């Protein structure tokens, strides 16, 4: 047998050769110091490579990955929680507002009640017309609702719950302030 090729040496060390070929190589190695040296050299290289220190993952790595995977997957109605929290914060804000400014909170509520009543009175002819178109409107509303739910679900998967609460609270406070401000303006106008 001629001297070994380098590929044969590696395959021999890794026991990747058929047993007949293996025996042939062993026989050759017994008589060939040059190939013996070459095998020894590469055996050491592989042993050193296979004993390289492992890269260790830090403590809590699994939990970090799990949190990243499952935090991004919120339930489709998770935005409801954010809405409830938003309303709760708004109520708190109104109470604090009343406490700080000293304004009568019951007057504020009574004012809102009259505004709503007036609105119903003014809008009743329109409501009657709307009733006639109810089936069509319901269909449109249903589609709009589905679109809204899909949109909010997508948003909640992108924005963290804390940020969602802040956004919803700010929106509710802006709407509430606008209604309150508009009502005050109308009230002053009536007085004048």
């Amino acid at each position, binding site marked *: 047998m001629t001297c070994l*090729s*380098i590929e044969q040496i590696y395959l021999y060390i890794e026991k990747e050769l058929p047993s007949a070929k293996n025996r042939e190589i062993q026989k050759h190695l017994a008589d060939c110091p040059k190939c013996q040296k070459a095998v020894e050299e*590469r055996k*050491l290289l592989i042993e050193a490579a296979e004993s*390289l*220190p*492992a890269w260790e*993952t830090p403590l809590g790595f699994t939990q970090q990955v799990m949190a990243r995977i499952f935090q991004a997957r919120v339930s489709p109605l998770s935005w409801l929680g954010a809405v409830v929290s938003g309303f709760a914060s708004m109520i708190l804000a109104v109470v604090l507002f009343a406490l700080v400014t000293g304004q009568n909170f019951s007057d504020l509520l009574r004012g809102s009640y009259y505004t709503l009543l007036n609105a119903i009175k003014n809008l009743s002819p329109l409501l009657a017309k709307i009733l006639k178109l109810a089936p069509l409107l319901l269909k449109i509303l249903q589609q709009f609702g589905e679109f809204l739910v899909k949109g909010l679900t997508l948003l909640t998967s992108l924005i963290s719950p804390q940020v969602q609460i802040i956004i919803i609270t700010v929106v509710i406070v802006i709407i509430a302030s606008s209604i309150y401000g508009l009502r005050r303006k109308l009230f002053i106008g009536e007085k004048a």
Partner: protein
Amino acid sequence: MNEDKNLVEKTLQGEQKAFEMIIQKYQQPLLNYIGRMVGERELALDFTQEVFIRTYSSLRSYKPQFKFSTWLYRIASNFIIDYWRKKKIDTFSLDHQKKMDRDLPPIQVPADEESLVTKFETSQLRGRIERALDRIPSSLREVFVWRHINELSYEEIAEIKGLPTGTIKNRVFQAKELIRNLLEETP
């Protein structure tokens, strides 16, 4: 092997704990592979997380006739290639690699071959191998890491890369010879 398939099935049925077990089992080998490919610990940890996230997202496309570990390593390999492409880091073109595969002759041991490995102590040798690894082409480094650090079989590596086993054997031994030749040059 069946254990992995059971864990995948349970994860798909909604058992989060099953995927947690997959992460625990593969985080270390995956980090060892990714770490040696990118060379930076923080980046490697981040990439390992991303690979698990990608794996979870595409779990429904996993075909049980293949080994889960080879599928996972394929995701990791593609992730690293994408990263290098985006960073415009040379990943050795396919043509270049094909040429390397073709050009490699069945090298014979030269009569006066110098001893490059035996002159170093084991700890010294390990350090030099680590540094030499950084200097060999990524396509060779990848198969070397899978074979000698992750201890995958040639058949598994061939399945990951979608290449013939002979080509993989060829690349692994090219990698070893390159590393051996770089040992002296590497401080």
